[in-house]
């Protein structure tokens, strides 16, 4: 027989997976925005898109609110089911494995990333802008790879 508490623990795990998928989408959007800002020439594109950065704190605040609430119920981080979900050994192992895999991908990816940014971007771009684009691409790659590996390893 499954009690409501057990159900809640399983719901938390599923909710966490969905949140990570949401975080991956937000990372991709923000990463693409960062790349566009860094690689676009000064002018028409750059000015309006700068306004979007003001939205960043709002997006983070909204996402945080989404993470701490579920179906109208507040999540208590001290509750046993929440502790079980956070401290769960299988999930922590999977996160460590995903982080290790992402580190390798990011390190190996530096070479093709650097080459593609060096060859495909306009020569008029300053080195600072290219370096910014490289940083944005690296961060995006790291986060997306970590989440993807974790969701893959954590599947049933």
């Amino acid at each position, binding site marked *: 027989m499954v009690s409501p508490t057990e159900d809640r623990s399983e719901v938390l795990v599923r909710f966490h997976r969905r949140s990570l998928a949401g975080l991956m989408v937000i990372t991709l959007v923000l990463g693409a925005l960062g790349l566009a800002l860094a690689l676009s020439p000064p002018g028409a594109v750059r000015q309006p898109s700068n306004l979007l950065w003001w939205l960043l704190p709002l997006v983070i605040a909204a996402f945080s609110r989404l993470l701490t609430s579920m179906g109208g119920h507040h999540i208590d981080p001290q509750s046993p089911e929440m502790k079980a979900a956070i401290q769960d050994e299988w999930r922590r*192992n999977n996160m460590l494995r995903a982080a290790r895999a992402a580190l390798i991908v990011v390190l190996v990816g530096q070479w093709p990333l650097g080459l593609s940014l060096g060859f495909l971007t306009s020569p008029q771009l300053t080195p600072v802008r290219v370096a910014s684009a490289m940083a944005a691409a690296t961060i995006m790659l790291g986060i997306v790879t970590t989440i993807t590996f974790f969701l893959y390893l954590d599947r049933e």
Partner: protein
Amino acid sequence: MDEKLRNTLKVQRAIRDLTQADLALLAGVTRRSVNAIETGRMVPSVLLALKLARALSVSIETIFSLESLDGADTRQGQP
């Protein structure tokens, strides 16, 4: 000698008529952990193994044992 961890978690759980979710609740882990251990995808830490043993009210050796790859049981203290 190559050895692998064998567990009787599923059997012990069945004896007590517990679901994976029930055992997970008793041990303070998620059902996925219990499932991963039962299917041999995860080797639990000593802490988690002790928690599972306590939840099932058995000794740790009742649940976990070492098995050599040629099939022989290499449990300590067992003939």
